[in-house]
């Protein structure tokens, strides 16, 4: 149980860092990158320890992780269109 409590404290600490970073009001792109990185670390800790992926067979662990990663990567194709819309927008008078 001690190991899980340590992970729980680590997750709480990461949430605190997220809030502190947000309160520093960095540029939006930098804030997004930082928050995604921290959320990714939290997800990794949750998957490996709370969901026990660390203790499953490696083949199973990578099958699960790769399935989600591939789905997420495939969703990235529309960002160009979002930026196209952003640049096409006519400024409000």
């Amino acid at each position, binding site marked *: *149980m001690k190991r*899980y*409590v340590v992970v*729980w404290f680590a*997750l*709480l600490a990461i*949430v605190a860092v*997220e*809030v502190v970073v*947000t*309160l520093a009001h960095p540029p*939006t792109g930098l*804030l*997004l990158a930082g*928050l*995604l990185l*921290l*959320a990714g670390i*939290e*997800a990794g800790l*949750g*998957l490996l320890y*709370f*969901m026990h992926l660390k203790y*499953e*067979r490696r*083949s*199973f662990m990578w*099958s*699960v992780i790769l*399935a*989600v990663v591939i*789905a*997420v990567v495939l*969703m*990235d194709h*529309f*960002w160009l*269109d*979002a*930026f196209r*819309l*952003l640049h096409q*927008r006519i400024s*409000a008078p």
Partner: protein
Amino acid sequence: MAELTAVHEPSPFAVPSRKLGIWMFIVADAATFAALLFAYGYVRVANPDWTHPFAFWPSIANGIVMTVVLLTSSLTVIAAVLAAQAGRKAAALRWLGATMLLGTLFAALHLREWVSMLGAGWRPFRNPLGGTPLVGATFFSVTGLHLLHVLVGVIVLAVIALGYRRGRFDADHLETTGLYWHFVDLVWMFVFPLIYLLNMR
């Protein structure tokens, strides 16, 4: 007459079928949430007049409390599974009860946030601050789907706890339900920073 014999192949992942089933659900559900968050990212990038509706007090502070509550519920569900695996039935039921209580508290805090936003004039397709109405649409759809998962999780935990008390379910059932509960927690690890923190005034 030819004799039929069953062939039992070992699982390539060494994972029981019930656990494999919940993992397949989790992978599919993760893709669902990812699609919703990507859609939110798309409309946000494409709308330079995006509204930042959340002040630190009360919205972000409420979100921090919700996050702590949900993270703690992940710890209590682990305690329930460990107790069940050790054969400590009463302790497992107590920890399951604590998890359900925390899940209900999370849902109550979430609904309080929703009521506050609805009171301020926010609707899924109306922005009272004058910017794009997609702010409300993305907020209510992403947090709504997550809230639905929490509520379903609390109900499933109650059903599993009752079955476990009556001897119908065992520690494996608790572990499988715990995996779902951790997943709900994990999704919130993305929803809180992307929907709340990134939209702080």
